[in-house]
């Protein structure tokens, strides 16, 4: 539906909204400043922004569910012309569910684990006076069916833990739409889900809200997704709305510097750009050159660990079977996590392993790192069979050559260690250098990952997510490894930070001739970092090809489905290219 039908009262109109939280000293900390936006009946409006931009806070203010000390400090929230910013509590409760519905972000934590799914949807019907008793039970089944859940009658009698993530999100959609609200707030409704599931759910949500004429306020960090799903975009940055307008217009002609950077960096959009491919080629050439020199050195030296081969990692017939307890007392079932996987990682290049949750990709990473023993198959590091390595000294030498970077920069750094200690620890474990030399090395590493040396004395909680991931990369590089295994290394980061870290990884590869094994669920980031792609599904290798082949002519149905699921794939590109010089925006990172 087209916006701004003249004379029509908007369904929701936010005017100069200010929201603030109180800190420990009860001083107000503004989270949203002067935000204004309008949603008309049946329209889909998306608020786009990174974490901390105030997008979720704005949405929660509408439904009166600001967390903790959050409160509206100024402005109006007009719902059907009535200001609800300062409404009495019972008036807001009356609106919730029946007039304004919510589909929350994380399907894993948004259903009460102790109640059956059907019961939780029934509550919404009863509370809003839609139906009671048997009629409500019947309606629950209809709603679940409508949300696209097969076998709804049986499913309604199950507990949330018996549902997969996608099924839970469908149940939450059924719940949000149960009392037929006029406005549905969808807060990152699919960011916790696999890409293919994400696409199915969003398609279904689109279809449902269209059919029912429900207006949607979509909150998302993904510009591509927002542009694909919404008529109208609102871009938020540091609590303020920096740009708003029709989706396509913003994507193709962004005015605000922040939006311009966002359009240029969003992986879902960047993955289609030729500039990112060209850039990757340059990186690869430089990396291969360095890697060749290193290989030559290794081959010439008799003291070196490896043999200086072209394929630094070779994996043959790698299989991992986990034994799970079965139903009966003595019966056990086998679960094949990784099934007969073979690949090789060329020195100085990046091989990406792409797959959805449960595909076995992280298990592969752990086996290659030697943290998990394979059931069968071999991992060869530069001509040396990893399984054959005995003795602590040789094991340490292998570890020096292979270092991991994990997904969650919040969890992978010891909160009680200073940044200096975290980066210095591997050097100490491997007894490298004197204290002075180690300090010089840490300084050098921080410089490599573009962090100021002043962070050395600080603790992880004082740094942003992107800074922490830089620390994790510095730590991985401390031992000058030849291979870095990145397990979802950029998945927990905001798009702009994600783009920065990918650039950093590229630069480091070109400079040091590193080889990366890059594990990810997100095919979109692959194009900016990888040379070869392995697509995994249910523990099996589905497709193995170069990045260009995968993107231009994928052979397998599953790979095509993954590609199609990248949000914003069908949107014509903006005029800003990744290589263009962009105005600087100060970022928290």
């Amino acid at each position: 539906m087209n916006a701004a039908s003249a004379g029509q009262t908007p369904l929701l109109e936010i005017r100069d909204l200010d929201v603030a939280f109180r800190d420990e000293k009860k001083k107000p900390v503004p989270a949203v400043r002067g935000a204004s936006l309008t949603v008309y009946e049946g329209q889909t409006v998306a608020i786009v922004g990174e974490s901390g931009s105030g997008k979720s806070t704005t949405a929660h203010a509408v439904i009166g569910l600001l967390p903790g000390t959050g409160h509206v400090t100024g402005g109006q929230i007009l719902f059907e012309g009535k200001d609800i910013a300062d409404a009495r509590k019972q008036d807001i409760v009356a609106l919730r569910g029946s007039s304004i519905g919510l589909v929350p972000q994380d399907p894993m934590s948004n259903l009460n684990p102790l109640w059956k799914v059907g019961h939780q949807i029934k509550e919404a019907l009863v509370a809003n006076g839609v139906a009671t008793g048997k009629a409500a039970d019947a309606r629950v089944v209809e709603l679940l069916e409508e949300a696209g859940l097969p076998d709804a009658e049986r499913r309604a009698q199950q507990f949330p833990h018996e549902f997969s993530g996608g099924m839970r999100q469908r149940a939450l959609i059924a719940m949000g739409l149960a009392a037929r609200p006029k406005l549905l707030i969808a807060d990152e409704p699919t960011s916790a889900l696999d890409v293919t599931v994400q696409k199915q759910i969003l398609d279904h949500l689109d279809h449902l809200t269209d059919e029912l004429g429900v207006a949607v306020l979509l909150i998302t960090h993904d510009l591509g997704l927002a542009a694909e799903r919404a008529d109208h975009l609102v871009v938020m940055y540091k609590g303020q709305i920096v740009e708003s307008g029709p989706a396509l217009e913003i994507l193709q002609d962004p005015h605000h510097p922040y939006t311009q950077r966002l359009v240029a960096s969003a992986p879902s959009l960047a993955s289609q750009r030729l500039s990112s491919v060209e850039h990757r080629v340059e990186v690869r050439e430089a990396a291969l050159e360095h890697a060749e020199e290193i290989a030559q050195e290794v081959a010439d030296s008799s003291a070196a660990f490896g043999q200086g081969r072209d394929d630094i990692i070779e994996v043959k017939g790698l299989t991992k079977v986990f034994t799970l307890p079965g139903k009966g007392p003595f019966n056990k079932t086998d679960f094949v996590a990784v099934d007969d996987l073979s690949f090789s990682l060329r020195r100085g290049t990046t091989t990406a392993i792409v797959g959805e949750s449960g595909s076995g990709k992280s298990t592969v990473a752990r086996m290659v790192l030697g943290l998990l023993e394979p059931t069968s198959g071999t991992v060869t590091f530069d001509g040396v069979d990893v399984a054959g390595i005995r003795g602590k000294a040789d094991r340490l030498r292998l570890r020096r050559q292979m270092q991991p970077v994990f997904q969650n920069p919040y969890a992978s750094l010891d909160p009680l260690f200073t940044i200096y200690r975290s980066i210095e620890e591997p050097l100490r474990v491997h007894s490298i250098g004197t204290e002075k030399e180690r300090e010089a090395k840490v300084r050098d590493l921080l410089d490599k990952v573009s962090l100021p040396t002043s962070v050395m004395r600080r603790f992880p909680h004082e740094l942003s997510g992107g800074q922490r991931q830089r620390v994790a990369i510095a730590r991985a590089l401390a031992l000058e490894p030849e291979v870095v295994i990145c397990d979802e290394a950029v998945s927990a980061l905001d798009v702009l930070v994600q783009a920065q870290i990918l650039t950093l990884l590229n630069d480091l590869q070109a400079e040091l001739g590193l080889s990366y094994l890059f594990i990810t669920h997100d095919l979109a980031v692959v194009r900016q970092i990888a040379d070869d792609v392995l697509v995994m599904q249910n523990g099996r290798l589905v497709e193995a090809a170069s990045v260009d082949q995968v993107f231009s002519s994928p052979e397998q149905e599953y790979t095509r489905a993954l590609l199609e699921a990248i949000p914003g794939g069908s949107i014509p590109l903006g005029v800003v290219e990744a290589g263009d010089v962009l105005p600087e925006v100060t970022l928290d990172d």
Partner: protein
Amino acid sequence: MGWYILKRIVQTIPVIVFATLIIYALVFLRPGDPILNLFGDKPVSEATRATIEAQYNLDKPFIVQWLLFLKGALTFDFGTSFSGQPVIDQIQRAFPVSVTLALMAVAFEAVLAIIIGTYAGIRRGGWFDGISLVVSLLIVAVPIFVIGFLFQIFIGIKADIDWLPPTVGGDWTITDLIMPAIVLGLTSLAFAMRLTRGSVSENLAADHVRTARAKGLSEGKVVRNHVLRNSLIPVVTFLGADLGTLMAGAIVTEGIFNVPGIGGLAYSAILKGESPTIVSVVTLMVLIYVVMSLLVDILYAWLDPRIRYA
């Protein structure tokens, strides 16, 4: 589930066997002569001593004593005390009062802890929360015998309420046990309360509670259906374990209020060095602990559908 319970029951067998062995060893190593204790200051003739030693197997090595005890225990014969009473009779007399006392104490503790804790958790940082914290710390800080005596003096004697006597004695009734039960319950009330409070305030911030509010539920329904039940899981677990502790470990309270329970029985048996009684009572206490922890685990699975044992 059935298989799991069976496994747990089988696991208790070695626990019990070794518990009795350790207790037997400790009693054996205890200084002092039980027969001398029995006769007080009067001299004991050699013949009498030999008779008693033979009767209670005191002349045999302790490992044999232990095996004989185990053999008897299999047929529910736990031996006799020095005063000639079968141990099983002693336990049968003392056990009901201890169980009743513990159940009453836990009921008192549970009701108060859940009500106060929930309210404090909802109004975290408010004046009610502050006062409940101070009062509960005060109760924890004061030793139980002081609280016990205060109750006896001010409620039992000064107020002189008929149905709240200061001591219990042999012919006890339920109302007699009210005061000791309150005193006993107070010991862990503070902990249960803080546990409820923390659990409630944590659950209030849970995502699914926000979702419950978003679907239009009233605040009362949100708290009753989505906060309380989730919050009670750790509390119930604690209370279950506490019931075991209170059944077996109420020696001080039983002493103050003259309750003829298991704690008192164990205490006097230890003083007299009556190994059959000590070993039987302590074994029973071990058994209570084991059974209670199994019950708590089963309760846990019943409360939380995510938990399945195999």
